[in-house]
């Protein structure tokens, strides 16, 4: 299982208390994904960003629904290896 979150680089310089918002899920549980595929769009500091799959796999669980926020480093989706 691989937990996926927003790339740490996106959080550079952003206040510790600020959270990101899941704008839209581009995949659903059970979907097969390729490495680098965009899984979700998230919003941080007025920026709309992609969270991408680090490796090929299957979407096992979405941890943060669209419209909810998440803190720095918190996983938002779990992938399982194919």
């Amino acid at each position, binding site marked *: 299982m691989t937990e996926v979150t927003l790339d740490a680089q996106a959080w550079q*310089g952003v*206040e510790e*208390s600020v959270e990101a918002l899941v*704008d839209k899920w581009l995949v659903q549980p059970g979907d097969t994904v390729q490495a680098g595929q965009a899984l979700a769009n998230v919003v941080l500091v*007025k920026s709309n960003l992609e969270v991408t799959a680090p490796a090929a796999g299957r979407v096992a669980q979405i941890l943060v629904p669209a419209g909810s926020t998440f803190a720095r480093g918190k996983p938002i989706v779990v992938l399982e290896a194919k």
Partner: protein
Amino acid sequence: MLARVVTAPQWRVWSYAAPAIVLGCSQRALRPTLEARVQGRLPVVGREAGGGAVLTGPWLLGLSLALPPAHAWLDGGLLPGYQRLGQLHVEVLQTLGVRARAAPPQERPSRQSRRDPDPLDWACFGGLSPWEVVDAQGRKLVGLAQRRRQTGVLLVAGTLLSAPDWRLLCEAMDRPDDAALLRQRTVSCEELLGRPLAAGTVHEGWARVLRQALE
């Protein structure tokens, strides 16, 4: 502008003949209610970037700047791109006689803490994000946002050339009492200069500075 891989910086300027409301991507759910309320009198559109609602119209001049994914402006996270874009606006406005500055992240007003949400967080120009452009009194003049994809990054900015019809926006959003506060927190080039500033003049300034900055 991000439909295909961006291989070199590209930019476009947007002016708006008539008013329209542009919702931020996280305001998507508001759209049906808003459209029902304005009943076609005012177009409502959504944008892919974040932030609050924007009222476009003749008072606003927009700039979209698409950069390749590995462009130097994008090193170090989200904020350096905002900083470069904000400072670029300051430079252009200064050449036109408008004194403004890009507000660093530490100037973020305390009113926008997460525990105490700001009453104007629904409006782009109601809040202040890192490196947005303000006047000496901290009133917002230029709003910034961005969209990052694997094909490139789109930095966008909106400059208030003249005072927007905040009442039109606030009534459409069913927040009529917020218009006065929006007027207090914003300022336009026309108000700072004491005379109108033509969109074409700003456009020429951007062209000159962008050519230098992106070479």
